[in-house]
């Protein structure tokens, strides 16, 4: 019953199917299509029900962030950056703020370090919860999203309580964070974590031990380990291939060196392995959140002083700050020419690689019904590709 009989096409030059031959069908999946993540599209060439060629088309969400950021002052960019990756805004905020602080030589207080770590982990959990619903749904499994979307909503409630926003938190401001936790907040967090954990146990039973899901996901979208560096694959997609690589460990930013955790590593490198690995990472998130709450200093300032936001000039220089987001290496490359506005901000989203190069290659030979599942298993967010 193994699905590894599904044809795996070895890396080779891309064949150009002759569309006029009548043998193939050209089909667009997206942008208006339920089986697509976000607003993007795949131009598929299919033969029978097998995909023979694929092109990823992006740009439907292109707002020109990198240009807009050159027009705005350093602090004005703070509300802008979180919009770059809608389901996971906090990583943008962190990378931008950290880059800005590094260039300006600002040390953030201990408490801010922990609150940032805490909110990034909470964000990671929410993002995975959103993903898991999509992954199950793309294989025709409608129940999981009913649960996970609600679980995610509970996490968003936590964000709302802490930051005042559900989707766009705008919490990790350059210099620290925007506020301390409200009274009784961590108690509420722990309650929600218990609820989510209980629900994840259910999900594991219903989804991961579901014959249909297993049958469809196992062997689908195999990424050979030697692709990892060749394609620049990062995050769970790389770890599922047995590559132990996690920026939280490797770079040791924020409070991660003080937290106890080991990157989750898989071996089979197929859609099911990636899904399994992400589930484990969700448990890990919950654990890290609990650790954060235990270790976080109770007192102390949460923000360092920064210059007047209207006239903040950042010393000339450049830096690249990366963080491990749910999809892999998320990074901000920031260049300052010493003026009140950034010279250049470039965003490196992991989906850039995963949804274009990797996706186009992996989808060849896949059954048309599995395209959506494969795409979700790569965990791609179009807004971070096109910015």
């Amino acid at each position: 019953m193994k699905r590894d009989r599904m044809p795996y096409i070895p890396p080779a030059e891309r064949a150009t199917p002759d569309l006029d031959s009548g043998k193939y069908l050209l089909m667009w999946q997206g942008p208006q299509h339920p089986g697509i993540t976000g607003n993007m599209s795949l131009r598929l060439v299919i033969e029978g029900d097998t995909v023979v060629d694929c092109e990823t088309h992006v740009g439907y969400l292109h707002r020109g962030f990198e240009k807009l950021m050159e027009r705005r002052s350093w602090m004005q960019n703070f509300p802008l950056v979180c919009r770059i990756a809608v389901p996971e805004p906090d990583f943008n905020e962190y990378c931008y703020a950290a880059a800005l602080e590094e260039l300006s030589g600002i040390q953030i207080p201990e408490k801010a370090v922990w609150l940032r770590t805490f909110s990034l982990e909470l964000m990671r959990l929410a993002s995975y919860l959103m993903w898991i619903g999509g992954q199950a749904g793309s294989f025709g499994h409608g129940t999981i999203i009913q649960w996970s979307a609600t679980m995610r909503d509970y996490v968003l409630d936590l964000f709302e309580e802490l930051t005042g926003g559900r989707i766009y938190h705008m919490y990790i401001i350059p210099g620290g964070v925007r506020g301390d936790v409200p009274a009784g907040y961590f108690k509420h967090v722990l309650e929600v974590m218990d609820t989510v954990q209980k629900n994840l146990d259910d999900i594991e039973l219903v989804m991961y031990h579901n014959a249909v899901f297993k049958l469809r996901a196992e062997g689908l979208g195999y990424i050979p380990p030697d692709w990892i560096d060749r394609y620049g694959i990062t995050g769970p997609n790389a770890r599922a291939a047995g590559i132990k690589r996690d920026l939280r460990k490797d770079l040791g930013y924020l409070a991660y060196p003080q937290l106890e955790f080991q990157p989750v590593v898989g071996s089979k490198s197929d859609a099911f392995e990636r899904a399994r690995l992400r589930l484990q990472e969700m448990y890990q998130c919950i654990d890290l959140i609990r650790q954060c709450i235990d270790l976080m200093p109770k007192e102390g300032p949460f923000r360092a002083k920064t210059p007047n936001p209207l006239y903040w000039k950042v010393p000339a220089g450049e830096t690249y700050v990366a963080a491990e987001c749910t999809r892999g290496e998320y990074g901000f490359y920031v260049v300052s020419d010493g003026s009140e506005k950034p010279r250049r901000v470039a965003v490196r989203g992991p989906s850039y690689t995963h949804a274009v190069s990797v996706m186009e290659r992996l989808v060849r030979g896949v059954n048309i019904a599995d395209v959506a599942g494969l795409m979700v298993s790569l965990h791609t967010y179009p807004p971070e590709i096109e910015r």
Partner: protein
Amino acid sequence: MDIKDFIAPFAVWKRAFEKPFTVKKPIDERPGAPRYRGFHINDAQKCIGCGTCEAICMNKAIDLVPAAGYAAKEGDSGLRPRVDYGRCCWCALCVDVCPSGSLGMSNEYVWIDSDPEVFRYTPGVEAKPWDGSPLGYRRAEGYRLLEEQRVEMPELDYKEAVQTFLELVRGYSRQQAEKEADRCVSCGVCIASCPAHMDIPGYINAVREGDMQNGLRLLYETNPFPEACGRICTHRCEEACAIGTGGDPVAIRWLKRYIADQVELADYGKVLPRAEADSGKKIAVVGAGPGGLSAAYYLALLGHSVTVFEKDSEAGGMLRYGIPEYRLPYPALDKDIGYIESLGVKIERGTAVGSAVALAELRSRFDAVYLSTGLPAAYSLEVPGDKHPRVLDGVAVLAAATRGEPLGLGKRVAVVGGGNVAMDAARTALRNGAAVDILYRRRKEDMPADPDEIREAIAEGASLVEKAIPLEVRDAAGAIAGKQALFVWNEARMVQKEDGKRPVPEAIPGAVHEDPYDSIIAAIGQGPDLSFIGEADRLELRRFKPVVDGFGRIAEAAAGAAAEPGAPASASPSKAAAVFAGGDLVNDRKDAISAIADGHHAAQGIDRWLDRKGS
């Protein structure tokens, strides 16, 4: 694939009897969190319309619009922020940056309409259901985007300061000045409060940019006394400062001083403008104080030839003779005056108009005359015994100190009054080794003196006696007879006698004190000396003030109406030069910057008048 993969999914049937996740009435049941960033609210009373919210808003979602019920006044632009919800991204940076803390957000989030034009409103002015919402986003405790504390000005130690006449305030270093300048948000609300309407955001920005030459140029556009004003200005601007609504106001005065201190006098000429052509007109200015010299400076820039008549032996007026050198060192003042003289302004020192030269003569010799004679005459205490030889007048004491004359104040000095003259006299007495009591009729908070001066005087060791009504000055009896005077005063309490007026000190019956002093310095107020204006000049005066028009020109009595039958026909006002007046003599503010503003304004008025007359 094992059997578990078929069975396990059924395990969650147990959840079928648990409470469902579904919210029954989502719209009603779920208000935003207490910190939710919902629709804006604004305490329009607290808001001063500085527009910092507009400046920080990256979405250009905020407009400043005139709001009904809020007129422009000093310290309040009369504008209020109007939010366009077709732009807003609810980042709340406007709330974070708001200097006064008036902006906030409610936790309301539902606003639906079919008309896209309605999503704009002025929070706090246009009523909305969420007005006054206690919940919603507010700036967190201890979190501000703007620095609320000013950079502390390095000062001499007070114990040390009182021993010398060295300048107390040491001035900012470059780093301090740039840090302080960075606190400014360039809203410009202060400009209206400055009598001279200086371009305050402009020159603060020059400090921020480190461009001192541009800074100096901006200063001289409206004020040729930056060294002096940078030290002793009454800085009304700082009262209007937007940053001051939620913290210390920006140290505008010290920044002005910083700019002027950074540029050498020799370099002034390279930066500042000069007259383009000589107009051939001659103007007389009476009084070489800040007002007179300011008029002279701007007249000289317009190409007129200016002569300033000064009764004292040095120019500077009250800046020199009224303000002690520990507040305004003479070299700093000389720098300001020196630059004005370098433009060709002639100062006739020691030439009093009225005695050495008559006003009528000036009017015939010059094309226009500007009077800026100020308030040189101290008013007396007006209590029995106020002509006692130990009763001195504050202005005279300060002038004597400037001239370096021995003051002979003695060991114990009373200063009567609560104005800047009183403080300066007290601190001068302290520096002469006296123990000083400052007696003031009302409370400390009512004192008209600059709060800094009061603070410094007390820090230097003067003791402040509030609510002391002077009653009498008597000769002391006994051993100290003849050497000291007995100052009799009555303790008072403040009584609110009439609604809407300030409370009145009322003597407490029986609480009369008698204290012996070596000197009693009266500093209750000063008046003008107008004895040089004769009736034949036909200048209109009211209550010892010239009656002036918008440009400072003194109205002239119609020929014949007020003229005495025997007046000489040659003094007909239409033939003589117009007379302008300004400064303390005319305005109610009675400070250097107002005099400077008057001088600038009158220079423009004179120029226009000459134009009209010439054509």
